[in-house]
């Protein structure tokens, strides 16, 4: 049992803190905030759509294109943060690996720019 505690105690701590923090934030905004509910506010947020319509309607594929591209570049930021924090430990190899990754991502970006995936009209 001591081994489990030793190895996983920090994870348990993280779990407790994150659950507690989530409860505090949600609870505080629920109890302390001023609430004037109306239909628009209570409806589910989904960008550009009525959330409860027929699923066989035609939709604009450009929303999904933007969402997919957003995910790619969001993940890039997600890679950059831990890389920046641990840069001191990962030597020059780690640095140049990230530079290579960014270079290839930029090529992808140039590609989507050129074929007009970023233009709405």
């Amino acid at each position, binding site marked *: *049992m001591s*081994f*489990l505690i030793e190895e996983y105690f920090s994870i348990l701590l993280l779990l407790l803190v994150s659950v507690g923090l989530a409860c505090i934030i949600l609870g505080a905004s629920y109890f302390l905030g001023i609430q004037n509910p109306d239909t628009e506010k209570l409806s589910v947020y989904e960008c550009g759509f009525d959330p409860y319509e027929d699923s066989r309607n035609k939709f604009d594929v450009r929303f999904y294109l933007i969402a997919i591209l957003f995910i790619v570049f969001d993940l890039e930021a997600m890679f950059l943060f831990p890389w920046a924090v641990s840069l001191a430990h*990962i*030597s*020059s*190899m*780690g640095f*140049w690996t990230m530079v290579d990754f960014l270079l*290839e991502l930029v*090529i*992808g970006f*140039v*590609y989507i720019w*050129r*074929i*007009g995936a970023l233009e709405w009209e």
Partner: protein
Amino acid sequence: MDFLLLSNYLLPRLDLIELFNLNQFMDFSLLYANNFKMFLPEIFLTTSILILTLHASFIATSRFLGYPLISKSINSLCILALSLTFLLAYNNSIVFMTTYQNTFIFDFLTLNVKQIILLGSLFCLIISEPNLIRQKINNFEYFILLLCAVLGLMLLVSSYDMISLYLSIELQSLCLYVLSASKKDSSFSTEAGLKYFILGSFSSALLLFGISLLYGCTGTTNFDNFYLIFSETSVNDIAVVSLIKKSLLCISVAFLFKIAAAPFHMWSPDVYEGSPISSTIFFAVIPKIVLFAIFLRLFQNIFSNFEETFLFVLIFSSIASVIVGSFVALKQKKLKRLLAYSSINHVGYLLLAFASNSLEGTQALFFYLIVYMITSLCVWSIFLSLNTLLNEQKSKTLVDLASVAILNPVLGFTAMVALFSLAGVPPLAGFFAKMEIFISALSASLFWPSLIAILLSVISSYYYIRLIKTVYFEVKPEFSYVIPLNRSCSFTMGTMLFFLVYFFLNPSLLLLLTQKMTLCLF
């Protein structure tokens, strides 16, 4: 609690392993010229993919040039890039090496499989070139994705770590999903892509689950460490062993999904039929040898002490594949579906050789795979040459084969030879390959499975012979203008036909090659 016991048990050994690994920590000072030499084909292919992407996206969207259609020139550039990569892989001087923190291995097996897939995809690109206009593939991304799939396959065969294995499987399969859905205006193609995507990601999830169980049991993802841990039979803890067995079961099911073996074959006929023909040829010919090579390394080399867990699964799946491939194919009218079921049938024989789990079995497997690749390239290029003005846009059925022997006797003869070789009729390489598989299965005492497979191969040869009968003895009800054979298809057909006959008369070249590949696994 199982994990706890296990980690206490394994910890002293893992310390040693980690100490050993720390020496190879990622650093430029520890990267030698050999590491780059070993990866030269992959580095070249990656660079050419990036350059081609930039080149194509600037040319194709240029208003000054009038938005030209560049799919043909990109296809030629891809052929050039692949042949240069093949030359780089061919001129490699390294015999054995692991690199990048043991995540990639380089030996004779990976070298040869790389050369084979590069040659195979070269032929795929060559025979699909004249059909681009007919298929209306005008987007240049198609070819770049195909190159990415080849890159993924090359990384997959040399991966020596669960993480690099998973990432390269994902790289190649994501490209293949898009390739199968690349005919945007056809709902069949979209359906094929979606089906392939959903079932492929399901099998990837199974693979990941198995990998995570293994990681939970051992604390490592490296093949070398697995080999060190499991090479002694001292892991006696029943809970741990059962957990490892379950994870191996998950991994083998994911593998059977990927190669479309029988209980997990449902996606393959639909994907074959719906995808554009050049993608279908790529799926049918190229990925199998890579998947077999990497999973043979995993099961026969790394986890060879757990053979009784997955051998049963492999034998069951082999028999099921042979049964499904022989009986269901009898009812197929469309040629693509027929060939899909025929490939399921062949996967059954391959799994029989896999399950015999011996040197001879593995050699027979590689022999069969190479012969199968040659034969299917020949069959698919015949398939591409069946066009008349009437059936050009439709999917080909058995009727399209009728009176081929009258209209073009050489094409009819080639079709006969290729189909006889698929069926395993004596004066051809297919017979020799099948015989080797049955001999290895019998020497591994797999009597019942080989008996069933031999009996069912009679049924499967029935539908090949029915195709030959259609080619030679049936006459089309209505005649139409035949679109003449193009040079690339006839070149491929001629080359493959030569090899089919040559490897029966003189199989020693192929036997030597497969023997050297096999010796890397034992």
